[in-house]
């Protein structure tokens, strides 16, 4: 494998991902987790996760208020999060990460994944998702630089 031709794979997968409703989604620390915008307030966001293996889930506001949409199943925030995760990482990668009880190759869409999830609501720490999101946003606040960084030649 050429070390000059690495890295384009991820780019194509995130082609259609939009940040308007779901500004942040990641596969981290055994969870698909992220942030979903609130339709009513710009200061409020929903934080949500689905755990790998168990598929247990939770959704709450950044003020720690449980999402009213959690009525024994995955709320709309979790469904949106899943859709954007599939756009960003590809259905196969998400299926693999969540350890769905199926061959990840056969999973083609967020809808496929949702049908295979079998978790229940679990109140678990969610503040980390918010701090991860703030950490993510911090990268956009760093000023652009002029230095030539020769090691960037490894990345295309």
């Amino acid at each position, binding site marked *: 494998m050429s070390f000059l031709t690495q890295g*384009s794979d991820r780019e194509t997968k995130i082609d259609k991902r939009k940040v308007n409703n779901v500004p942040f989604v990641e596969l981290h620390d055994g969870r698909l987790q992220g942030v979903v915008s609130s339709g009513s307030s710009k200061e409020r966001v929903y934080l949500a996760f689905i755990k790998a293996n168990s598929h247990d889930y939770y959704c709450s506001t950044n003020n720690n208020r449980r999402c009213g949409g959690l009525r024994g199943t995955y709320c709309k925030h979790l469904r949106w999060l899943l859709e954007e995760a599939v756009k960003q990482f590809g259905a196969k990668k998400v299926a693999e990460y969540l350890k769905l009880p199926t061959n990840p190759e056969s999973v083609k869409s967020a809808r496929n994944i949702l049908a295979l999830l079998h978790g229940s609501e679990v109140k678990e720490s969610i503040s980390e998702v918010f701090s991860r999101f703030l950490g993510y946003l911090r990268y*956009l*606040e760093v000023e652009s630089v002029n230095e030539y960084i020769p090691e960037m030649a490894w990345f295309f």
Partner: protein
Amino acid sequence: MDATLEHLSEIPTQFQELHTYIESIDSLLLVGTGHAKPSDIDIFRTLAEAVPSKSLQNRVHALVRAFDENLLNDEAYETIALVRSTLQIAQYEILQHYLTTILGRASIISDDTFSSLQTQGSENGILNAVKKWLIEIAIAGFDGLSADAMTPFIPTLEKLVSIPELNETHAILLGFINEIMDYQPIHNIDMIPQHRWADLWSRLMMRTLSPKIQVDCKSVSGDLFLLGLEIQQHTQFVSVILYGLLKAEEDLHSVRIVRSSFKVDVIDTSHIWLLFPELKPLITALSSAQSLKIENGQLSPGGDLTISYSHLKSGKSFNLIEMMSSCYSIESPTNNSTPLTLPAFYRHPIHVSEMIFTDTFQIKGTGTSHIKIGEVSIPLLIPGTFPELDTKTLKTSKWIFGAFRYDNTCWWFQPFSLGKSDQIASEPIFPGYNFIDTFEGKSRYNPVKILKERASRLLRSK
């Protein structure tokens, strides 16, 4: 030496010999020093007498002793990176010299060394944390890495974001970590790009020894003629590298202007210019073959030009083809400009490069296309995310400007710009060309703006 382009692929044997040594070091990093057998370190026994400087020889002897006594300290791991980098500096010099000889150009490789490594006091703590993490990786081996091994390092990464002096180390680190994470879980050891990861590992280790190289720049004013560009990026960082010629008084310099930014994964190639609004006058000048007036720019000995983006004045239209062919024509070996060079600290075969202009070429093949110049066919190196450089466009282009580059096993040609017409008023197409209308603020979807608004609201209210 009577070498011509036909001999390009006949890589000097010294280069291959050095590569064999490097492969042995890479095998050690793959299995990890924690699992190394005595025979895995034979390479260092061999190299102890072969490395050029006495101080490095002493370090290698100390490394071998430390292995034998099972007492590897931080210095031992630094030595692994130093030895590997020293071999690659030699490889760079061999290959760069070979390439310039083949092209009939003057070989200019400054004889500076990187012996004067020094870290700045305030950054020592964090660089030490980076070093410890790199050592953990070397102990575990690339094949023993897991997502869990990355987690303890996250607080260090979070601290790095607020230390501008370490931006460069941070950018490389993010690229490396993201790539390791992308490969998890590692099912098959053969899937690991061990040479690439060993490169990134040792470059990062070198950066912990010396995060920045100081160079003395001189102040320059004159006319800048932009010729093409390349974009280097991973999910969290992007660099735009513009290539051009600076005419300052009677001197013509090959120059490189770089602008880099951190970013997040959802910002892809189509949003590139949204990250760099200040580059608008440069990209406009490039796309319309107009010069720019530079006042009090800073020029490094290697050709890196730093300019003030707020004081740019546009100059006149210029004959792009004439300008490029006078300095970089493959047919005529006269380079009228001072070429770009690289300080020893950074030298590595990946940076072997000579800029090329040609209007007598053919593009062959589909998939990996090749450029045929004379009787020589060289694969084209085109990042997959730039639609403006597709095979169809390349095949119909009248001229092409780019560079020969080298990877593990062969030469590549990387285009920086190309022309649809051979007229004097030929205007170039270049990576990112399809998205230049985003400079006008007309794009309906602007993730940079959306996320920056979020950032300013949430980061301040916290």
